[in-house]
């Protein structure tokens, strides 16, 4: 396997991404969208498409840049640093990975639209308050040559603005994945007002018609296509959380050097020094797990589950530690809306929950390491 050190190309990609995002989407960008009541910036998405980011996992034959999962994770990490608001993970990572598992004309056309930035996606899996793909109950009942979808999905990230939905439904002998436009008759999307000021919706499906053409992969076998897509999404989200933690931590360390109390910089106090050093150690250890997950997805995707769950668990844990300490070390100013630390804390909470929380992924790791009966 490629070493656990970033290659020169990866370093260049990270630098370029950071340069662009510091200009185009610093945290003031998120703050501006929130104040205007918006959750999506089409101009930003267009710029990402022009740089090849939306096609990062789209094959070159379909117009993508096909840079791989390690590269997608680097982009997600840089977006995490300034809390960039975009449907990157839903569209460019999850949908693209699902669609490239199948090689029909329809999937190719969809991939082409992801790469050129003309279409965004949301993944509709969960129906309860926790991530549980196996618990899907939304019905896909066979009607003639097609299906009727009935049921509801909860907390569908990016669904308020998405052009298309990937919907996991229970069919006669298993689970089937559908790719349908979000405005198809019978679909009702209710936008949620979420703490991270980003897009999520609950969706009702009332006898929504779908054809065999709308099925991604094989009927009753949706997880074959969805599993790699979920893992790609979880790894990218872990990377986003790593960037988020780095952003929050960097601000906190700067504050420890600036803020004076009792006549000295508060970074003089050992009680704060040791906690800051501990956070850095946790970040270093998490960085290894995230880098490793990207390498596994690129080079041994059939066996990436352990690496991905390890990365998501560690990244969740580290990000939450970092934002909790970030607010505490900033004191009163950390509690104000005018200051950015709260934005980090709220996004960390949402990203921790999405696609499986710490407990979910730690249990995956434990089951793979010790067997399910342990």
């Amino acid at each position, binding site marked *: 396997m490629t*070493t*656990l*050190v970033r290659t020169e190309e990866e370093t260049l990609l990270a630098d370029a991404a950071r340069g662009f995002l510091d200009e185009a989407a610093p945290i003031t960008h998120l703050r501006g969208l929130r104040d205007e009541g918006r959750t999506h910036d089409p101009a930003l998405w267009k710029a990402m498409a022009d740089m090849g980011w939306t096609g990062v996992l789209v094959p070159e034959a379909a117009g993508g840049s096909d840079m791989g999962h390690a590269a997608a994770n680097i982009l997600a990490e840089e977006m995490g640093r300034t809390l960039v608001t975009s449907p990157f993970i839903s569209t460019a990572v999850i949908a693209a990975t699902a669609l490239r598992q199948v090689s029909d004309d329809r999937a190719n056309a969809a991939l082409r639209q992801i790469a050129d930035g003309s279409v965004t996606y949301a993944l509709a899996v969960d129906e309860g308050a926790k991530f549980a793909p196996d618990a899907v109950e939304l019905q896909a009942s066979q009607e003639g040559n097609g299906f009727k979808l009935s049921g509801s999905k909860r907390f569908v990230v990016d669904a308020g603005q998405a052009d298309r939905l990937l919907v996991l439904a229970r069919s006669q002998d298993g689970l089937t994945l559908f790719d349908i436009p979000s405005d198809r008759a019978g679909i009702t999307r209710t936008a949620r007002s979420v703490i991270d000021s980003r897009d999520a919706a609950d969706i009702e499906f009332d006898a929504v018609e779908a054809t065999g053409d709308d099925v991604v992969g094989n009927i009753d076998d949706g997880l074959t296509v969805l599993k790699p897509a979920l893992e790609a999404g979880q790894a990218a989200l872990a990377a986003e959380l790593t960037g988020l933690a780095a952003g929050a931590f960097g601000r906190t*360390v700067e504050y*420890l*050097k600036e803020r004076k109390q009792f006549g*000295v*910089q508060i*970074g*003089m106090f*050992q009680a704060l*020094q*040791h906690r*800051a*050093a*501990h956070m*850095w*150690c*946790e970040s*270093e*250890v*998490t*960085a*290894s*797990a995230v*880098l*490793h997950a990207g390498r596994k997805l690129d080079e041994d995707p059939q066996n990436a589950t*352990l690496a991905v769950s*390890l990365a998501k*668990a*560690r990244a969740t844990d580290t990000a939450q530690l970092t934002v909790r300490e970030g607010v505490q070390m900033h004191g009163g100013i950390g509690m104000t809306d005018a200051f950015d630390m709260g934005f980090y804390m709220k996004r960390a909470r949402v990203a921790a929950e999405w696609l499986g929380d710490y407990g979910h992924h*730690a*249990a995956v*790791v*434990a089951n793979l*390491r*010790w067997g399910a*009966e*342990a």
Partner: protein
Amino acid sequence: MQDISDLDSFRTEIRYWLEENCPEQMRDGDTSEDSICWGGKNWNFTSSAQKTWLERCASVGLTVPTWPKAYGGAGLSRDQEKIFHEEMARINARTPLQSFGIWMLGPALLQFGSHEQKLEYLPPIARGEIRWCQGYSEPGAGSDLAGVQSKAEDQGEHWLVNGQKIWTSYADKADWIFALLRTDRDAPKHKGISFILIDMSTPGVSTRPIRLISGASPFCETFFDNVEVPKTQVVGTINRGWDVAKYLLTHEREMISAGGALMGGGRSLGEVIASSETGLSDPVLRADAMRAEVDGLAVNLTIERYKDQVEGGGSVGDASAMLKYMGTELNKRRLEVMMSAGGSDALNWVDTDAPSWLRSKANSIEGGTSEVMLSIISKRVLGLPG
């Protein structure tokens, strides 16, 4: 990076050599403390195979594969060393010789020693003839290591050494000691220390083992009472021994952290859980175990990442403090989980994890405490004031 075909032929060559030379009894891996060969004048080989294996490896420099041939090594490149370790692992070969001479003094001499010192001291380390110990800590200088008071006075012909060291690992079994001694009482504390080599058989040197909470006595007190030491036995510049000490501490931290994350009585968490009476049915224990497993995998990946970084020509630097802190704290947690998983069965002295559990508490003290590691990181990595 070497030519791949050269490396392939090296692999073939080393594989053949190992097949021919590694005795059958030495192919059971580094399973326990007892399987380690420490060497030295007082060493009793546990089997003739252990002796044969050491001699065969030493004759071609493979006890210290990357040291130059002139000093008893095999002169291997990093790529070749990696292949050597892979081929050793392939046949589950024991490490032929382990010692503080190999891990610590050797790297320090290679970096700071004179050509004459390297020729005199390195080959006996490589052959396992001389066993070294480390004389750093003192009763009044633990975390504040630069506060050492044991002194070496210039008597013209020789140094006159007086004082006491503590926590000297295996001093009672060692032939020589490398010690930090104060050679200038008036200089600032970091600037008046020298790194001096002392033959333990010199009159005036004595040791006394310290019994630990684990029941073992790996550490000693070492006393110097008017010990005369030749002037040629200073490594590096007089009064600049702190540079050598710092360099060595980095090595020591990497060693403890690499060992710490993988240690635990030789058993993995999974094995302990499988063999315990109730498994992980207690939800609190289960949560602790899962967290330890997640963190353990991530720490091991971090060790791997830093190895990759070093092999790619980078350095670990102050991150060794992170590896040491995270590895040792994790090891303590893992052993707490193992003890809980074992219940009352784990409470006997023999055939349990209890000695390892007690031993693990020293991991975050020796070689710099966890708190010292965090202070190093906050100042040198994060640039916090003070």
